């Protein structure tokens, strides 16, 4: 359903600081795939997701979603089919607006905006149902401004907003990295729940090897702007952290340089 062909992204092209962030990547994602992406710092993980989401123009190659070439589409147009959650819990919600106002935007995402009321009884009912599922008591606080919520609550809300309109593709960029361990576990469980329930095709960057192995049906390891391993279903089940690190060292010719990743092993 998603095809990335010969994708190339170069930052500061033609300057002494030229940096090939994505080095001719090919990737085919199948319907229903839940892919975890690992790699050292600067491997190109975030750049890959940003390229798919249309955040910036790419030098070469194409991104095809549902047989539609979205390579040159701007970020907001791509977003009509793609849900995203960022590392920063503040990035995905509007702090001065209430929970229900934020959710309203997410629910009407797939439709054209109109001059109809942003809120209605019907919409509130849908919201309550969704909020009850994430089990943080937010269904009783519909009119609370989002800035009053904790980071974890905001990230849960962002996750809900990213999935509620049934996107074709969900892009998660270390979305639990800024949370405390207990909250991170909650958000991870919620992620699996929401993704499975709606069968959303997902790409998730993580710095946590254990999560990368446990979650999803496919694991991609990146290094130097390339995909160095693409480990699928059966093979992934036998994977361990030690094996994964060994594999990395063979290809990279050196140790994993992501401190956070080693610490979280």
């Amino acid at each position, binding site marked *: 359903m998603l095809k990335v062909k010969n994708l190339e992204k170069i930052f500061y092209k033609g300057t002494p600081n030229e940096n090939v962030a994505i080095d001719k990547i090919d990737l085919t994602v199948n319907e229903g795939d839940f892919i975890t992406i690992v790699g050292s710092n600067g491997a190109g993980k975030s750049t890959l997701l940003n390229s798919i989401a249309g955040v910036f123009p790419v030098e070469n190659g194409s991104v095809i979603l549902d047989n539609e070439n979205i390579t040159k589409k701007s970020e*907001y147009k791509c977003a009509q089919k793609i849900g995203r959650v960022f590392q920063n819990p503040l990035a995905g919600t509007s702090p001065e607006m209430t929970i229900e106002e934020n959710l*309203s935007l997410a629910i009407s995402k797939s439709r054209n905006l109109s001059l109809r009321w942003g809120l209605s009884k019907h919409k509130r009912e849908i919201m309550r149902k969704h909020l009850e599922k994430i089990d943080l008591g937010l269904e009783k606080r519909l009119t609370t401004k989002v800035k009053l919520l904790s980071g974890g609550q905001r990230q849960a809300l962002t996750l809900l907003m*990213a999935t509620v309109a049934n996107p074709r593709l969900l892009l998660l960029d270390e979305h639990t990295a800024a949370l405390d361990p207990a909250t991170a576990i909650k958000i991870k469980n919620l992620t699996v729940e929401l993704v499975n329930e709606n069968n959303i095709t997902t790409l998730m960057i993580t710095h946590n090897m254990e999560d990368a192995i446990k979650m999803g049906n496919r694991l991609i390891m990146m290094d130097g702007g390339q995909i160095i391993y693409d480990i699928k279903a059966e093979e992934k089940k036998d994977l361990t952290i030690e094996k994964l690190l060994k594999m990395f060292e063979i290809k990279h010719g050196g140790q994993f340089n992501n401190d956070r990743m080693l610490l979280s092993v």
Partner: protein
Amino acid sequence: MNLSFAITSLEQGLAFGIMALGVFISFRILDFADLTVDGSLPLGAAVSARLLVAGVNPFVTLAAAVAAGGMAGAITGFLNTKLKIAPLLSGILTMTSLYSINLRVMGRPNIPLIGKGTIFSFIRDLGVPYPWNNLLLLILVIVAVKLILDAFLNTQIGFALRATGDNPQMIRSMGISTNSMKMLGLILSNALVSLSGALVGQYQGFADVNMGVGTIVAGLASVIIGEVVIGDSSIIIATLGVIIGSILYRFSISIALNLGLAASDLKLLTAILVIIFLSTPRIKKALR
């Protein structure tokens, strides 16, 4: 301070209150410090006055002023979203161009409206005596504008507009173009400012090319006074605050004048007032 002073302040507060609602849209909702308003306020007065002199129905001239102000906002929006000129500079460029355009529209620096039928004289001729004709009309207009604005900001598009100023990244993730929203907000904002200019022109009986100087600061003062005095817990409260803020601002100006302050010192006073109100939260924090 006598009664006529109070009535004048109230009238001015209401007439300029619509301008303050426009500034509220750009400054607070879009988070876009838009200086276009210093040009779009006299633009409204100019368009309305020129048409009045040409014999057009005074109410129709208001609609023309709204359209002209919307266009001015669209130009600032174009400069910022398409040509990627910084918000502040986009506004300054449009404001500067409008000075020439306003002179072109009027054909001279000042158009007196004495003896011309205005919306205010129209109501007076219906049998509403001065000063009730002014007050009645201004209250009707501002209440209508407030209610429509409140309603609009609670529609789907209104939500998107509010989120654009609050968190543009989020609104892009929701599949909405931040550029379109900025454009829309600037058009609405300047349309209101221009309407206010047309009302002020008809109210004071002339349009002058220099009447826009300091509009943005007066608008900011109103918005901020409103926030401090009334609050901004919801849109309905916030827009009410802006109107009350505008009235309080005009009263404080009147009081300052009554205390013997020279009219030429007013801009300085306004700027100081805005500085005090803008810094209040910080000062409060520091004292705690």
